[in-house]
């Protein structure tokens, strides 16, 4: 709301001159990096390579690739997502400093996909059994992260690394919970809730379980993915799967 007021209050030439002065200037990009580390790093990572928020170093942005698109998104946020607007808090020049930093951080080219997406799609639903846990559009299982927009949310490198080392960087909240009941039964699944008095988890059959700590022997959480590693697969197969994943842009 406030950011719109701010934008309308500025004339287009004033905006453009700030843009020309700041974007592409190394010192301004450095100032932007300082701001980025405080404000954006909690979601986008200290290197802007993503985490809870998208990777910002691929040169491809969900809401447009022009400087003006970045300015708009940082100022106003993206409705329906966790991305807030920073226009009021930081002002025009600082928003351009963020843009300057992002431009300096996205100089590296996104790695070109070398696999075959059609072959990857087949592997995804058959040999890989990825759909047992992951959902794409209206198809797939509920246990793992929804991959419908994986190609927008995650970088090529992130997806490639996740296949062979699922524990490298977990999607927030998708941790492994293991409960041992009073009668010695062990139940493992993906975290739905984990707190000081209880835990909720989903087992591979899609059932949600709930436990009170006072009623079980133990209740532990590990920074471990329930996804198996695919490192025994051939380079070609892995590249094909990733080629398929990067095509997933949310078109149902």
């Amino acid at each position, binding site marked *: 709301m406030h950011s719109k007021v701010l934008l309308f209050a500025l004339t287009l030439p004033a905006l453009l001159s700030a843009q020309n002065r700041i974007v592409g200037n190394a010192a301004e990009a450095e100032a932007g*990096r300082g701001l980025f*580390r405080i404000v954006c790093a909690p979601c986008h*990572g*200290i290197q802007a390579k993503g985490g809870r928020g998208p990777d910002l170093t691929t040169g491809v942005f969900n809401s447009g690739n022009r400087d003006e698109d970045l300015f708009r998104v940082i100022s106003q946020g993206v409705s329906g997502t966790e991305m807030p607007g920073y226009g009021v808090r930081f002002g025009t020049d600082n928003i351009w400093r963020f843009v300057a930093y992002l431009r300096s951080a996205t100089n590296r080219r996104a790695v070109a996909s070398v696999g075959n997406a059609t072959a990857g799609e087949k592997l995804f639903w058959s040999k890989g059994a990825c759909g047992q846990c992951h959902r794409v559009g209206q198809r797939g299982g509920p246990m793992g992260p929804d991959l419908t927009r994986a190609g927008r949310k995650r970088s090529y490198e992130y997806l490639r690394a996740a296949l062979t080392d699922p524990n490298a960087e977990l999607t927030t909240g998708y941790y492994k919970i293991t409960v041992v009941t009073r009668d010695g039964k062990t139940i493992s699944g993906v975290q739905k809730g984990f707190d*000081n008095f209880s835990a909720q988890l989903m087992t591979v059959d899609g059932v949600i379980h709930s436990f009170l700590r006072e009623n079980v022997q133990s209740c532990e959480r590990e920074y471990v993915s329930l996804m198996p590693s695919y490192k025994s697969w051939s380079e070609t197969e892995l590249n094909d799967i990733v080629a398929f994943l990067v095509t997933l842009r949310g078109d149902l």
Partner: protein
Amino acid sequence: MRMLSLFVVFASMAFGQVKDADWLTYGKNLSGWRYSELDQIKTTNVKSLALEWVFQTNILGKQETTPLVKGNVMYVTGPENSAFALDLTTGRQIWKYSKNMPPGVNACCGLVNRGFAMQGDVLFKVNIESTLVALDSKTGSVIWESTIDDYKKGYTATVAPIVVKDKVIIGIAGAEFGTRCFIDAYDVKTGKRVWRFWTVPGPGEFGGESWPKDGKAYERGGGSTWVTGTYDPELNLIYWGTGNPGPDMNGDVRPGDNLFTCSIVALDADTGQRKWHFQFTPHDVHDWDATEDPVLLDIDQNGKKVKAVVMANRNGFYYALDRATGKLLTGKPYTEVSWAKGLDANGRPILVPGQDPTPTGNKACPGGGGGHNWQPTAYSPQTNLYYFSSTDGCHTYYMTNQEYLEGQWYQASTFTGEGLFPKGSIVAVNPATGDVQWRWKMVSPPSGGMLATAGGLVFSGDSFGYFFALDAKTGKPLWNKQLGGTVINAPMTWARAGRQFVTVAAGGAFFTFALPK
């Protein structure tokens, strides 16, 4: 007749002799104990606690207030310049105060408020745009409102004031915005400022040599005072903790110890003159504010009773100081500390090299936000233990050069944790030795403050929305209830008509519990 007296005996056995009990100031008493003599709710019956009423503020944002209770009314402040008077019996609203915030208020950590102070029928609270307002407790009407300082410079006000004699004492926030902070006293009747103590001295003033000689570093020096202090009437001294120097994580622009940041200052209540100061973290670069509760209690030191002020500091050490002189009595880590090997005889940390923020990052423990943060602490004279929350872990601290712009964020970088679950605990410390008596481990950083009662209980809440009671002697959890919103403030307790009540805020609502009638 005989039947009736038997009944009275039985009733008082069941419920004890519960006198009406108020809660009149932020820390329960001006020593900041947050301890209540009420013992109707105790270890053996706490499992029966039941809901009495809920009040929904309908305001999103963090409830950091400590409610006050007087007469038949509870007084609470909320985020975004709001406040409410509530009926003690039903929780129904008696009046509401609200004031629009001017656009462009820059607050580091939410548009929060930590509560009222009260004298007679007058309530005092700060508003976020750095004003202090006096309200008629009967109606919520404004008696006077004074400007503390200019919010456009980056100042915000969130603290609960205290009243000392004829003055309202307040602190200020804004050390993340390159401000120079202070502690102020205002006349209760007129709202006129009586004195100001700058927590960052100017050139030529005592402590001024701990800042660069030339330049404007001290003008951006921080030292915020956003958590309520305490008062010793015998010594007539006010004790107040001070925050980080500015910018938080780039110490290169402010060589020196940077007094009086990350310190406790003891001020004459009448004049605001500094009696002594104790700096916990000289030249801080990890954002280790010393704005935690400075709690006043007497501790045994070699068989002698010493008037002490204690603090569980964000830097990972628990400290007890002689509150007449400011000399260190004891200092000991209560969580993992990597940045200092220990304290020297004067309490100055013995630094471990390689722990400061750099452009590429350095790991240090505690992590950002420290071990114990601002959440209210409690001291129980019954157990002689001091209770507080702690975030237990480490972070990688980064430094960046950052240009100063008036009123803008000026932190010069940040900290991150990667691939680890941050953990926490509630800690009970022997205040004389700093030894940890017990530690109740939590699966994530703690969020709530502490309340200790003569019922042998410690009440608190967590980020998941649980309100819970621990055994004050052992830390064993005895009871909990899910309230559906984060508990940030400390629970408080009061009594009316023979019954003890416990009130806590969770999410945007206030919940009151008691034993069933």
